[in-house]
Each structure stands twice: as structure tokens, then as C-alpha cells.
């Protein structure tokens, strides 16, 4: 009798642990299904761009897999090229009673797990909610999942919020000091590249102009000569021009044009 009672309890335990484990019978929870439905028409852009409202812009690569070895789900990853934005999100309807797992830190083992997620969901100060739309820069994105870590006591993420458009991937992040980076077009990135190229060219042309003027100011005038090649420029003047020119270029490349004042012009 005792044995039978113990077996019954153990059986109850296993039933409880695997309660609803076969989600194919139970069906995918509605809120998770909405995210998975994003597969239809999901952005094919594997390269996206985020920028703030001033100058900073970064290229990111994103990848979404909606087929987890034949099982429905989502494995999404986005990683920035230069900054530390590095997010993985998994939507797993068949994990227990369903789970959304988020990782947004350099420590890939520090995950935030929302179990049986019914949106909005909350876990230890982390929250998830579905928004109808979000304005990011000049664009409006629809059906956006917002992850908010701003209320978490211990936030392993290097950001405060991120916004995942179910058809578009990452559309916005908010830094820990509340600076927004929004999705922008590839044209915005190209413009930024052009701007940086122009700034480098300006530094080079300043350096060349200063070098030329040093040489000109120190070149003896030969009134009677018609042949320019006969004018001899002292080597120390050429060295000085070269040195000042390099100093200006270095001042630029060290990120400080104000350092030009140290170039002994």
C-alpha cells in the first residue's frame, strides 16, 4: 500500500515536471506564436545600422532562424561590428511550458529566462512587452517586442532597453545612460563613411598646405634665374616641413586637432 502510494506520488511528480511538455498537443502559446509569425516577411537584411541623433553610427549583423531542427521556435542573434551590442534571443515554445531566453552581455552564460511568457512578462526586474509600433529615427516599426532591463537590480546587459521588430529584427537600443540608437538606412552609414573620409582629406590638405608654406617662406628668391630647378632649398627646411606635416596628420589621427598647436609651426 505504502509502495503504491509512493509510486503514485512519484508519478505525480514526473507528470508535474513535464506538465504540458508536449506542446504540439497543447499548441504554441499565443504571445509566442505572434513572434514566430514574424517569419513571414522577416527582413532579409543581414546587415543593419543603428545611429544616435548626433554622429555615432554602427554596423550590425543579424541572423534569425525560425526552424530549430524541425521544431518551431526562433534563434535570433545580432552583434555590432565596433560597439558592444551583442544580443541573443531564443523563443522556445517547447521548452517546458514555453520560454523566451535573452542574453545581452559578454558573458554568454548570464541569461534572462522568461518562463511561460504571457506578455507583458516580468522577471526579477526585467520586463518584456509587445508594442503595436515604435518610432525609431525617421521610421515607424510595427509589432515590436520591448525588453527593458532598467528596473533590474543586477543588469548583466550592457544596455538598458532593446526593441525587436518581429519583421525587422533590432530596431532600437537605449544605453544605460539613456542614449538612444535607432535603426537607420544604409545611406546614413555611407554618408558617415564619406564624412570621415572628407575629415581625413581635410587634415591631409592642411598638413600639405602648411608644409608648402614653410618651404615657400624659406626659399631664397632668385630674381635672375628663369630655371626653378636651380633654386636649392636647404635640407633643414625640407625636414622641418616634413616634420610639421606629419605632426598635423598625427594630431588628427590621435583625435585632437587642437594638438596642432604643439607642432612648432
Amino acid at each position, binding site marked *: 500500500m505504502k509502495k503504491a502510494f509512493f509510486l503514485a506520488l512519484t508519478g505525480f*511528480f514526473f507528470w508535474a515536471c513535464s506538465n504540458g511538455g508536449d506542446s504540439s498537443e497543447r499548441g504554441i502559446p499565443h504571445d509566442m506564436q505572434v513572434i514566430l509569425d514574424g517569419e513571414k516577411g522577416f527582413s532579409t537584411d543581414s546587415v543593419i545600422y543603428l545611429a544616435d541623433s548626433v554622429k555615432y553610427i554602427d554596423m550590425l549583423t543579424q541572423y534569425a532562424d525560425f526552424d530549430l531542427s524541425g521544431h518551431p521556435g526562433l534563434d535570433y542573434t545580432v552583434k555590432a561590428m*565596433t560597439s558592444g551590442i551583442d544580443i541573443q534571443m531564443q523563443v522556445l515554445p517547447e521548452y517546458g511550458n514555453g520560454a523566451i531566453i535573452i542574453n545581452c552581455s559578454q558573458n554568454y552564460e*548570464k541569461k534572462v529566462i522568461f518562463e511561460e511568457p504571457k506578455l507583458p512578462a516580468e522577471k526579477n526586474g526585467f520586463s518584456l512587452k509587445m508594442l503595436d509600433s515604435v518610432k525609431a529615427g525617421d521610421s515607424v516599426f510595427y509589432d515590436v517586442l520591448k525588453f527593458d532591463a532598467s528596473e533590474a537590480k543586477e543588469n548583466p546587459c550592457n544596455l538598458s532597453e532593446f526593441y525587436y521588430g518581429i519583421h525587422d529584427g533590432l530596431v532600437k537600443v537605449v544605453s544605460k545612460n539613456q*542614449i538612444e540608437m535607432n535603426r537607420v538606412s544604409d545611406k546614413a552609414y555611407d554618408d558617415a563613411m564619406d564624412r570621415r573620409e572628407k575629415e581625413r582629406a581635410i587634415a591631409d590638405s592642411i598638413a600639405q598646405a602648411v608644409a608648402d608654406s614653410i618651404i615657400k617662406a624659406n626659399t631664397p628668391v632668385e630674381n635672375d634665374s628663369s630655371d626653378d630647378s636651380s633654386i636649392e632649398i636647404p635640407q633643414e627646411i625640407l625636414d622641418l616641413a616634413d616634420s610639421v606635416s606629419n605632426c598635423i596628420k598625427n594630431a588628427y589621427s590621435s583625435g*585632437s586637432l587642437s594638438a596642432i598647436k604643439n607642432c612648432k609651426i
Partner: protein
Amino acid sequence: MKRLNILAPLCISLALLSACGDIEIADSSSNNYSEQCRSDIDFQAYQKDFGGYKKGKSIPYKHSDGYLFSLTVTSITKEMDPGCQKHMNTLLESPYPIYSITVSALAPTFYFSNLDKQTRDAVNVNVGQYTFVLPNPQNRDSTQVSTMEINGVKYKDVAVSKGRKFKQPYTSISQTETEESDAKLYYQTKKGILKIEMEDGSYFAINEGDK
């Protein structure tokens, strides 16, 4: 007593039930190789030369787009591998621009020290999708600059390393394959990261001159 016999399995089952609930966030379990290795190995000695990085230290930088920011040492972990080799991993972070930079060393010191020359080890720096490796100076493919001026301060014995980036498209955290890039790291044993130039033309550099 009979009642106890009935309650005992009930309690066990309840305990098991509570255990089958949440699967929680967890830190990586610290490995215990240090217990198998000599316990008197002095991590402090090479922490001193580890770019001067100490937990909580904040280092000023300037970004080419004009941003002034600080990289703060948010974590330093020390691990011992199965061969009792020491690994020191440092995480530098800034809230904005959002940077999470890892600096990890297998070498006893960072670079260009006499101790480095005795080994074939390297220092690895990871920024975004870029990886820089500063190998042993006697076995290096990076170069050395004797003096470099950055934001008004001169730095001696600067190592310059060309970076690699993840092979595109990057699709998973388990991806390890990399390809060549034009990114560059300027690094000094005493100060750590001096400057990083990215392929997109942006860069950031240590900014001690404005102190």
C-alpha cells in the same frame, strides 16, 4: 509514526517538485583547477602589469566622432586551466558609446616584458566583431612603435596589432572563423589599450592629456 511514514514521501515529492521549477540565470561556474594547482601562484604580480587595470578603474578616452567617455574595468577574473596555466580576463565597459571590451592574457605580463620573451603566449583583445592578438614579441606578426603621441601624451614601446574580424555573415555566438581586417590596436604594457582604429574609419584613443 505511521503518519510520518506517509508524510515523508509527500515531503520528498514536494521538494522534488519545487526543484523542477525555475531554471535560473547562472554565472559560469568557476573552475576549480586552482585547487589542483599550486595555491601560492601569485596572480597579483602580473595583475600589476596587466595594463594597470584594476576593478573599478576608469580610463578616459576620446572617440573620433567627438565623444568623450570612460572605459571602466567592470570585472577581472582569474582562472587556472588544466595545465595550471594562469588566465586573466578583464572586461572594460562604457555606457555610451556602448563598449564591452575583453582583454585576456595567458602571458605572465602583457607585452614586451622579459617574462613574455620566455613564452609563446599572447594577449587577446576583443572589441565588437574584431579580435586583436598580441603574441610573444619574439614570435610576433605585429609591429612596435618606439614613441607615439596621443592626445598630447607621449607613449613609449607601443605594440601595433592588425585585427581580424568574424567571417561574414556572423550568425551565431559559436562562430569562430575570422578573416583579415584593416582594424588596428595600439597597445602598451603599462597603460593597456591606447587606441583602436576600426575599418569604418572611426577610432577611439586614450585621452590622458585633458586631465
